[in-house]
């Protein structure tokens, strides 16, 4: 059973602890847990196991490569022969790729989850076309806006730093994985608090589905 978003942000989680070596382990960011489990369930890929690191690592990306390496080794020690990393580069500047290479595991392509949810090719094209002043939210970030962004960036304590942090952004683009009016309202409210325009883009799961299909076939 999926834990609540607070747990995914602060602690992470995994789908089981007693494992069979024939199963495939997905090591992911807590911010992706719900979406990964949804894709697994939709496709009946029951042999895919999931272990998530805390989503709050995103506020300290330099900690991600080491944390992923430790989890990969832990999975190997538990007998998983196949391990896949469901983290984009996520601000690690290529260091996560190096860890994946050294540990012999594959990770989902893309600079960040906004990109692979939107579709990496489409996202790159939009960026090339000048979409650089958007602050992106996913379903998870819309739900966790208060914890990860408002409090995480210290805006709850020091509202006067808002212009310094968000002054160059023009709009929030909510990349919606699901059709959920309540989440749309949350994302819209987040944009308002940041003083930015709002746009919603329904992406579904984007390139995530293809990556998980690949893992399921491994």
């Amino acid at each position, binding site marked *: 059973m999926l834990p609540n978003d607070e747990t995914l942000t602060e602690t992470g989680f995994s789908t089981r602890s007693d494992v069979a070596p024939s199963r495939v382990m997905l090591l992911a960011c807590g911010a992706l847990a719900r979406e990964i489990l949804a894709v697994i369930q939709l496709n009946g890929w029951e042999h895919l196991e999931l272990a998530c690191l805390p989503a709050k690592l995103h506020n300290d990306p330099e900690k991600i490569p080491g944390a992923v390496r430790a989890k990969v080794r832990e999975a190997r020690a538990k007998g998983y022969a196949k391990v896949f990393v469901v983290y984009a580069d996520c*601000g690690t500047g290529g260091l996560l790729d190096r860890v994946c290479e050294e540990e012999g595991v594959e990770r989902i392509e893309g*600079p960040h989850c906004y990109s692979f949810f939107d579709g990496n090719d489409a996202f790159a094209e939009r960026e090339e076309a000048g979409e650089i002043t958007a602050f992106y939210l996913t379903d998870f970030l819309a739900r966790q806006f208060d914890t990860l962004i408002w409090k995480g960036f210290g805006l709850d304590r020091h509202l006067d730093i808002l212009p*310094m942090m968000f002054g160059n952004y023009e709009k929030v683009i909510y990349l919606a994985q699901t059709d959920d009016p309540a989440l749309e309202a949350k994302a819209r409210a987040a944009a308002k608090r940041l003083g930015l325009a709002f746009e919603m883009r329904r992406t579904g799961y984007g390139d995530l589905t293809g990556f998980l299909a690949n893992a399921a076939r491994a």
Partner: protein
Amino acid sequence: MADEQDDIVLSELDDDELVLQMHDDLYDGLREEIEEGVNILLGRGWQPYDVLTKALVEGMRIVGIDFRDGILFVPEVLLAANAMKAGMAILKPLLAETGAPQLGKMVIGTVKGDIHDIGKNLVSMMMEGAGFDVIDLGINNPVENYLEAINNEQPDILGMSALLTTTMPYMKVVIDALKEKGIRDDYVVLVGGAPLNEEFGKAIGADAYCRDAAVAVETAKSYMDRKHNKLAAGA
């Protein structure tokens, strides 16, 4: 530190106490107190350069150390920077009048496709505080902007910043353009930004990767020292 603030009357402190109190006030991001402290020291006949270096720059140096050690976080550093900026706004015209020492000139900007400027702004401010003339090109700079500024300003140092994995490779585009023009070695190229590291800096041909504003200042000073030594040796 802020709890004690109500009892303290800045004008009643002697110079040493006031400078230490200003370090605390910078740490706590107290803009108005910093402005008041700067004005008090100036009123007591302090040279603007001494106010800048002993009260403000030294205070921000302490903030920088605690940021590096994980004691302070970005919001607190931004508040401190805001307070320092307010102090510098008072000092800047006075520094120009009194002929404060200039260590060198820097052109700095965030690269094309990137709008993030928190780190770049901190570097600009700390470099100014350290005695550099800083030409800040702002955000989203194509190579042409850097080349034009280099040509017009003839700086000693070029600084580039990026926060995104997708934009940091653009730094190499700029460095390659300098090489093509045969002017790469005329400038010290410093790069920085959250996803960068030393290896990346070397790989793209920068002179140094600076992990934070304090390191940027120390690195810039060290390159300027070397430049002066070289000039002196050649004289």
